[in-house]
Each structure stands twice: as C-alpha cells, then as structure tokens.
C-alpha cells in the first residue's frame, strides 16, 4: 500500500525528516508517535502534499506509484486522505457544497457518475448520524465557527464520505475531551477494513486505547527510532518519551 524509503524532508532549508523507512500494508493501522518537534506532522504533511515541504531524497510509493510526483488533489482522488491537525475554515463555502464537489471530483477520477444534490444528500445523511453531528452543519460554512471537537468530527465525516484507501490522521485526538474522542475513535474504527490502511499520528497514547494499532512507531529527531506492536505504546506511556531519547543518544540496533 505505502512504502517509504529513506525519506529526507526539508522545510525552509532545515532538514526535519532524516531518513524515514516505513511500510504500511493493506488494511493495517500504524501509529506514529513521538515528542513535539520529532517530525510527526511533517511526515503527515509531506504525504498529503502540502507546499513548502521539500523531499530532498528518498522514495514514497503508494499502490506502486510515486506519491511525491502527484499533485495534492490527484493524491486525494487516488484515495489518500489526510485528517488535518488544524482543519481550515472556509467562509462562504457550505460543507454540503464542499463535500459534493470533493466526492464528485473523486468519483469522476474513478470513472463513476457524478452525484446530484439529492443523491449526495442521501449518502451524507447516513454518514453523519454515527458521528453525532447535527444535520444543520451541512448548511454551515466549512469549519467556520466550529468548536475544536466539531472540526475534528467534520474531518472524520469527510473521510467517511470520501472512503479513502489510505487515511493519514494528523493528531486527530489533540484537544478533544473524552466524549468527543470516543465518538471520533468509533468513527475511525467503523471505517477500518481490509482494504483501507491508516497512519495515525499522535502525541498521546490515549487515542490508542480506542483505536488499537497493528504497529507502533516512535519518531524522534526525524527518524523512526523504535517500532513494535501495540504494547510499545503502553511502554511509552509508562516510561515517557525521555526513554526513547535516551535510546537515540545511546544507539542500539533497532529491531523492526
């Protein structure tokens, strides 16, 4: 599904990612954890195609194709979705219009018929209820005046409408209270399937109580310094990121 090989990324001339290797198989859920400034969000952004992130070397292959060579909208149409850490407000564009435009762009790319407003509404109604969102939010401008929790739920709602093949969740849990976290996690879990892979970027282990990952990777100083099963997250929670940083300071062979 996704193969990252020796990826180095610069922002404004500073190298943030210093050789990332990551392999995500079909249907797998990978958690990427790490302290502030370790490069977690950079990794998510470069996969989504945000401007200003320069891949200076390395390779990212998505379903056999060179992901970095694709424009952000093409990546999305090919099934890559990023849930933003800070979802963007778009005054003047309603959620409904925005999502129909997006879904139709994706459908057109797949060679499917575009949906009318009525057909779209039917799909959307089914997707919105499990997230405990009010239908009226469809008529509101995208994320405008939404609370932090509403914004994050809106990201998950968009994901459920677009049905991506690879979902990258960038700190979707930060800033959420426990109730909102449970709703968001349930939304994500309901989308888990054997054909859909997830990269869950998070600072806290808490989210992983609800979304149980197949693999956990620890990112520090632009490199994956530790990989393991879900127990690694618990170990991190117990020992703190200091433990990982020590490991980096005293390099030992890292078993994947």
């Amino acid at each position, binding site marked *: 599904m996704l193969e990252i090989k020796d990826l180095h990324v610069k922002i404004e001339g500073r190298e943030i990612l210093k050789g990332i290797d990551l392999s995500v198989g079909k249907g797998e859920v990978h958690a990427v954890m790490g302290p502030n400034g370790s490069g977690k969000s950079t990794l998510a952004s470069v996969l989504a195609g945000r401007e200003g992130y320069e891949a200076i070397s390395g390779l990212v292959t998505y379903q056999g194709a060179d992901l970095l060579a694709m424009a952000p909208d093409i990546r*999305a149409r090919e099934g890559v979705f990023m849930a933003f850490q800070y979802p*963007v407000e*778009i005054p003047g*564009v309603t959620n409904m219009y925005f999502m129909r435009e997006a879904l139709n*762009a994706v459908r057109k790319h797949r060679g499917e018929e575009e949906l009318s407003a009525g057909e779209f509404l039917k799909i959307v109604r089914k997707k919105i209820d499990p997230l405990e969102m009010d239908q009226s939010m469809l008529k509101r401008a995208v994320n405008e005046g939404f609370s932090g929790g509403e914004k994050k739920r809106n990201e998950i709602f968009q994901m459920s409408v*677009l049905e991506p093949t690879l979902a990258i969740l960038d700190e979707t849990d930060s800033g959420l209270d426990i109730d909102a976290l449970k709703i968001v996690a349930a939304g994500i879990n309901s989308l888990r399937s054997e054909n859909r892979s997830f990269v869950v970027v998070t600072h806290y282990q808490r989210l992983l109580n609800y979304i149980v990952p197949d693999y956990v990777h620890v990112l520090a100083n632009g490199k994956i310094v530790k990989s393991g099963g879900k127990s690694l997250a618990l170990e991190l929670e117990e020992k703190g990121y200091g433990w990982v940083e020590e490991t980096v300071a005293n390099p030992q062979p890292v078993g994947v």
Partner: protein
Amino acid sequence: MVAVVEDLNARLRGFEALRERAACEPEWLQRKRRLAMDRFFSLGIPTIKNEEYKYTNLSDLSEVEFFDAPPVADMSLAAYRGLGGLTLRFDSGLLAATDGAMPDGVTVGSIAERLRSDPDGLATRLGNCAVFEDHAPAAHNTAGFEDGAVIEVSPDAVVEEPIHLVFAAASAVSNARVLIVAGRNSQVRVIESYIGAGRYWTNAVTEVYAGENAVVDHYRAQLESIEAFHTGCFQAVQERSSKVSTFSLSFGAAVARNDINTRLNGEGCECALDGLYAVKGGQHVDHHTAIDHVMPNCSSHQLYKGVLDDRATGVFNGKIFVRRNAQKTDAIQNNKNLLLSDKADINTKPQLEIDANDVRCTHGATIGQLDETALFYMQSRGIAIERARNLLTCAFAMDALERIRIEPLRAHFEDLLLRTFADKTEDRREVM
C-alpha cells in the same frame, strides 16, 4: 483643454444635431440642456489632475477611436432566466422594444414620448436630481440624451414584478437616461443592464426620487464590452422613512466609472449601497459613492466587494457627509478586495465628514489574497486547484451577492463571476 473638447466634440458629433432636435422640446428642458452643455465645455473631460479622478483616467475618451456602428451586442448576457416582469430594450439610449405586460400601479415608458405627450409633466423631476455642476459626464448626458426610461410608481402601489431596462450600445456614444419616481408608500424593483460589443462609450444617468415611505430596490449590471468606456451616475433623493437600495455590478468595460450618490432628505430614511466588481486583463473599475445624511435618525449601509486579476486596477472612494442636524445617524461602510495577482492594484479611500455629535459611523477597507491554506485543504479533498480558486473567489463575493434580492439575477451574476475567472489559471501561473 478646449482643443481636446472640441476635438472630442467633432468626433462624437451630435451636439449640433442635438440643438436642432432640442428646438421642439419644452422650454424648461432646453434651458437645462444649455446649462449642461456650457458646464460640460467648461469642465471638459476630467483628467487625473482632478482629485475626483486621480486614479481614473478618462482623458482617453478624447483620444480613442470609437467605431460608429459596433457589432450587435450579445443579448443573452443580460437575459436573466426566470426573471419575468417587464423588459424595455434601448438601443443607444433610444427605446427599441418592449416585452412583457405593464404591471399594475406603475407606468413605464420612453422619456422622449412622454415629453411629446405631456411637455411639462417631468419639469420638476427630470434633471433636478442628478446635478452636473461638478460632474462632466452627467453634464454631457443632460445636454445630449435623446430618450430613456421613465418609471412612475403610483402612491401605495406595490409592484412585485421587476422592471428590466436593457441598454445596448449601438453607436459610438450612447447617453442612457433613467428617471424613477416612486410615490408615497410605493414599492418598486428596477434592473438596468448595460451591454454592447466593440469600442464605444456609454454615459448613463439614473435619477431616483423616493417619496415618503417608498421602497426602491435598484440594480445596475454593467456588462459592457471589454473595450468599452462606461460612465454611470446614480443619484437618489429620499424623503421621510423611504428606503433605497442600489446594487452596482461592474464586470465589463475597459474603463468604468460609477458615481453613486444619495441624499437622505427626511427623517428615518434607510439606504443600502452595495456592489461587486470583478475585473481582469487591463480593465479599470472605479466606484465613487457619496451619502448625504441631512436629517436625523437615518441609516446607510455600504458593502462593496472587488476581485481583481492580472493587471486590473480599481478605485473605491466612499464619502459620507453627516450634517449638523443629522443626529443618530448610523452609517456603515465596507470595501473589501481580493487580488488574484501581484500586478493587480486597488486604491480604496473612505472619506467621512461628520458635523453632528451623536452618530455611529464605521468604515473598513481590506485588501487580501486567496487563503493558501484553504486552497490546500480543498486540494487535499480532491478538488483541482483551478476549481478551488474559483470556489474561494465566489465565496469571497458571496456576502455581496446575497444583497441581491432577485434570485434569477443573483444566480446569473454568480455564474458570470465563476466564468470570469474560470479560464485564467494558465495566465495566473505566469504572473506568479
């Protein structure tokens, strides 16, 4: 200057023929025309030395080659699907066709016809509202208009159906003239559309009298050819508790100058002056508004939004006068601009003169670019960059478009806005 004006006059011809034609007009109008003509000759075409025209150069009007018979205008540009009501088409300012039934409570017709059948009927109205002492284009129009539309709404009449006036340019110079007289407690909706093809000059003057408690909802769609010159002057006088709203849409013309003025002559008046301009290439658009708060307890709202691309330039100048007697005035002015290219340029200037001491006057002007993070967000959901730019541009204009209370008009303008910038992506990449 005299040479320039004479040269202009020679090439625009008209005035001599006009004198002959005017000979059979009522005396009051002949007098007014003479005054206007003298005024036009002494003012001349404004140059940028004139503070009011600092950023809008009309001197080209005396230098450009106008073509006598422009190709026929594309009427579909001003065909608002589902509009209904009554439509009058004017070719070069002369009534050419009428379509639809005359609504109850209103008479709509030709000014020339009215002057023939009832020579003194318009004596206290026509040319009394649109002052030309300091306004050369209005002086030119007053001296030279041959026909136009007169709309008289009977007291207490509520005219729901819109009255649509289409002014198509069919000669080098057209003086378009509109007079709206709304009686006491009446209500009316008027749309003016300006279209044409090729290089020409349309010089329009609209006068509005809103009687006590009258409501006038007015729209002006400037959809001239991209090579044309357009000068438009809107002047309203409002009596007690009346409400006038005028929306200026300015998409066309190489150079467009819109003067929009209203005088709040009675207590409790409301006015809403709104507009949307969208220009690209080398187009220039100028809105000058002036609201005269003469009496207490009146409110004025202004929202003008502009989208400028390529090397296009724009001007917004908003004057608000609050006279000593005009206590409890509530005046809000907003001008917001979106620049789609580094080379586009806007000059925006509020001008408030307040002589009363218990008023609320606010003004704001902004100039911005498309939000890059919003563009990326949209792209990350599969929306192509060109489409994302378009959607954001439309979203920017949305609150101005929402001021349009006639749905077919709003939809038409939204569509036009989308089309205006739809094919611009390649050019924009070059500019950036």
